[in-house]
């Protein structure tokens, strides 16, 4: 009886690990897509709306869903509340929020480089920088989707099968 309960625990935990890993894999392209649409809205706000940056960031935060909205929220908050440069505020909020997302180091570098250009040029060069960042993110998204297709199923079945193997070895 105790053996059976232990076996159940083992198989549940390993299967759960597998599903969690696969969720992480499927979350990354989704969040990258959101990030892209966020930058596109930012471009529209800058080019056509002439919105100040903290205002635009606040609007983006209300438009987006959870992990990315935190980023723009903290960015807007830093811009209004503290005496920093845009670059520092952008980088700090990136660092704060990045651990909570499924995104990786490559995207972090892209976004950091974008933050260095933000608010330092006229509108047209700013638009060019946004387009450049979008291209980089596009490439990362293709990469992320490739990885998802390849590994999502594998990770799921790997978790379950490892649990099964462990049980057979321990019985």
């Amino acid at each position, binding site marked *: 009886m105790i053996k059976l309960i232990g076996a159940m625990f083992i198989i549940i935990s390993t299967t759960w690990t597998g599903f969690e890993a696969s969720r992480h894999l499927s979350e990354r392209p989704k969040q990258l897509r959101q990030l892209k649409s966020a930058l596109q809205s930012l471009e529209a706000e800058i080019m056509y709306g002439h919105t100040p940056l903290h205002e635009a960031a606040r609007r983006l935060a209300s438009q987006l869903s959870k992990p990315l909205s935190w980023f723009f929220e903290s960015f807007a908050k830093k811009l209004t509340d503290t005496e920093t440069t845009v670059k520092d505020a952008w980088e700090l909020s990136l660092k704060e929020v990045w651990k909570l997302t499924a995104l990786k180091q490559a995207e972090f570098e892209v976004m950091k480089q974008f933050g260095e250009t933000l608010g330092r040029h006229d509108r047209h060069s700013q638009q060019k920088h946004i387009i450049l960042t979008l291209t980089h993110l596009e490439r990362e998204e293709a990469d992320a989707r490739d990885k998802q297709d*390849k*590994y999502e199923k*594998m990770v799921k*079945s*790997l978790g379950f*099968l*490892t649990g*099964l*193997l462990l049980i*057979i*070895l321990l*019985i």
Partner: protein
Amino acid sequence: MGLDVDIIFKIAGVGIVVAFLHTVLDQVGKKEYAQWVTLFGFIYILFQVASIVDELFQKIKSVFLFQ
């Protein structure tokens, strides 16, 4: 006799699971991991079988070479 049947089922179970793992890893192109998994499964079963065969030899020894 109960123990023997148990161990046969165990070996069969390990074989099935390792075969599945091999196929899954093979399909995504992780050939080297697949080979390692199969190798470890094989070695584990080999040890089990070796200990059982050892038991058998001990028994034969005690039947025929009684002091």
